[in-house]
């Protein structure tokens, strides 16, 4: 009798442990196929949500809207219109791509270089300076080389300043580079006011309109749809992409960058000088962003203004992050973002929709893709059905 009651007491006292409904654990590795699937699903979800937004706010058929977006980038009523549109799209992709490539080494090192906007502007200012003051004295390709060098050096200096402070005194680089952006904008405003033409217009106007000195020359057409004047843009972008890929994946310095990004302590134990890596990488990052300014001024706008960068420095941050610093994936991400941007201008004019809808759609899609990182990095373990004792 007593043993029974003892057993009953023991059984009643056993604590009940409830497992949480969802438990998170970090994934070590996800196969490439699954990663692509997760991202594609996120993209799809984003497109669906954006379509819902379009439908509810504006009462338009979302499929028609997406078709119009595609049309705005790659289509057109006749061949000339298609040429213009496709060339324009490719040109925008190139500029954004160069900026993304500039940020890739910095971000891989976990140095949050939010100053691409300012570095591009400073590079553009240097380019415009050479164009305006030496457009007549230096001829031909030499002028372009001088402009490029000027842009690279100035951009590198602009990136170097925050790097030095981070390397030596651990100053927060996100905020420092952000502030450098605004100082660059003001310097650009100052230069625009100095160089303004005509006087009082507060804009520089097209630089060297008669001689085309310093403009990107028409080299060669690619296929029927890409205009010759953008050949150099594409060339520079592709060379940067391939070089950055090789640099990050297959060079000793790229390896050092990866180690510093992973863990500073590991880098120190391995004998890598973290300070030197930070400074060297930011010089490269600023230089390439300056090069983007060179492309923007000499190859695209042929002028300089505070909107030369046009917020692309910030978009490039998202591009670099989403493509996981892989230069080839960056091409895809840039295409997506430029598609959203240009497509939205198209739907703005075609459907009398406000052109800012593109920002909303871009934002929604980016939110979903950013959120999908979670499913790549973490695994959700759901509570299994309780087993009977």
């Amino acid at each position, binding site marked *: 009798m007593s043993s029974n009651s003892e057993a009953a007491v023991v059984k009643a006292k056993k604590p009940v442990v409830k497992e949480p409904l969802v438990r998170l654990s970090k994934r070590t590795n996800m196969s490439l196929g699954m990663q692509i699937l997760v991202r594609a699903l996120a993209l799809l979800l984003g497109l669906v949500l954006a379509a819902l937004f379009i439908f509810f706010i504006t009462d338009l058929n979302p499929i028609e809207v997406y078709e119009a977006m595609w049309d705005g980038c790659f289509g057109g009523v006749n061949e000339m219109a298609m040429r213009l549109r496709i060339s324009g799209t490719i040109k925008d992709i190139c500029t954004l791509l160069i900026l993304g490539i500039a940020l890739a080494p910095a971000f891989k090192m976990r140095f949050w270089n939010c100053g691409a906007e300012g570095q591009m502007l400073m590079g553009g200012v240097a380019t415009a300076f050479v164009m305006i003051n030496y457009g007549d004295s230096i001829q031909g390709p030499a002028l372009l080389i001088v402009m490029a060098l000027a842009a690279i050096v100035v951009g590198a200096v602009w990136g170097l300043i925050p790097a030095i402070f981070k390397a030596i005194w651990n100053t927060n680089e996100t905020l420092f580079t*952000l*502030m450098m952006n605004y100082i660059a904008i003001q310097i650009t405003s100052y230069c625009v006011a100095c160089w303004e033409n005509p006087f009082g217009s507060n804009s520089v106007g097209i630089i060297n309109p008669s001689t085309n000195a310093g403009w990107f020359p028409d080299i060669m057409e690619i296929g029927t749809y890409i205009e010759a004047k953008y050949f150099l843009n594409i060339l520079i972008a592709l060379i940067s992409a391939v070089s950055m890929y090789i640099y990050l994946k297959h060079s000793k310095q790229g390896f050092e960058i990866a180690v510093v990004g992973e863990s500073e302590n590991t880098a120190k134990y391995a004998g890598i000088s973290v300070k030197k890596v930070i400074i060297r990488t930011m010089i490269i990052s600023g230089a390439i962003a300056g090069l983007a300014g060179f492309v923007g001024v000499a190859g695209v706008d042929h002028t300089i203004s505070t909107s030369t960068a046009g917020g692309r420095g910030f978009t490039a941050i998202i591009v670099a992050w989403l493509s996981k610093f892989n230069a080839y994936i960056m091409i895809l991400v840039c295409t997506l973002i430029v598609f959203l941007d240009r497509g939205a201008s198209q739907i703005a004019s075609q459907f009398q929709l406000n052109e*800012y809808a593109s920002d909303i759609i871009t934002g929604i899609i980016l939110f979903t893709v950013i959120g999908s990182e979670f499913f790549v990095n973490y695994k959700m373990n759901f509570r299994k059905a309780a087993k009977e004792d």
Partner: protein
Amino acid sequence: MAQIISLLQAAIVFGTVIMFGCVGETLSEKAGNLNLGVPGIMYIGGISSLAASFFYEKNVENPSVVISIIISIVACFAASALAGLIFSFLTITLRANQNVTGLTLTIFGSGVANFFGGYLNKLAGGVGQISVRETSEGFRKRVPVSDSLAWKIPMMIILVALALLFVYLVVKEVMSVIKAQINKPTKGIRPRDKSMIKLAFRLLIYIACVICLVWMLLNYDSFTQIVFSYGFMTYVAVLVAVLTHYFLKKTRKGLNLRAVGENPATADAAGISIVKYKYLATIVGAGISGMGGLYYVMEYIKGTWANDGTIEGLGWLAVALVIFTVWKPLNAIWGAYLFGILYWMYFYVSGLTRSSQELFKMLPYLVTILVLIISSLSKKKENQAPASLGLSYFREDR
């Protein structure tokens, strides 16, 4: 003199916008969330307050200004908090990278605001046509200061009392220094007296305040112009800054929040709910920042909407101000006004060409960089950024 008063007035109005943004962002950053979406949140706050009061005014026969004001404030806070919720969900639950999420929120917020701004303008009849004049005037209603003795005497008494308070503080400091000198040990190891410099600095500030107060007493008109030319939200901003300071420094929950921002692993081990504090801090912080947008729309541009990028620039200045104030909300009060003075100074300094004006506009950002450098040189723990700023927390990493 009139120039200086005009500069101060412009500075205070400008400063209030970024003060709201700064205090909200400070709250969020103290919990470890670097919310770079502040410009987007201010956009969203501005447009939602405008839309709410616009629809109220249009659809009600005799709109009551008070209700319209309440509706716009509530709408602004709700919309900004919702934007903060999106950010919180992505960064806290889904542990996404905070920089990228914040920048996306800025893009999204500016898109939403400019899109609906254009849409509202179209509804109202054209570009820049939307105007919620009555509500805006309600917001901008000045404190009814008059020359009558009923106002003057209490004001003078307050000024005199404040001046006497500062004089008392000066006297107290000097007395304590004298006492310390008298009681100083003549032999033995004496610690180096760095506090002398701080003391001198404090005395300088007190004496400057006394001089300002006496000047205000003597120039009563200028004083009323400087202090009373604004709508009520200006004073609400100062109140919010003081309350946030009190919450962070003097309450248990504020202490927990600061712990979450400094070292979430330790706070988690101590039983503080990281998720709850981070969420609440970011959402409430976003709500407060959004009020900056409301103030901009209602008081700065007087109840209309223009699709220019001014709010975005103000938002980034607010982020800069957080660093400038070394994450202390009380500093936001004078810091915001100082930024306003620096920003508008180019307008009031004579002899500047249009080009050198642009260089002047750099001043707030240069000053922020200086503070950033000095604070990282300083190594003093109180002046550092919250240690886990920008990092997401995963318990298993502990």
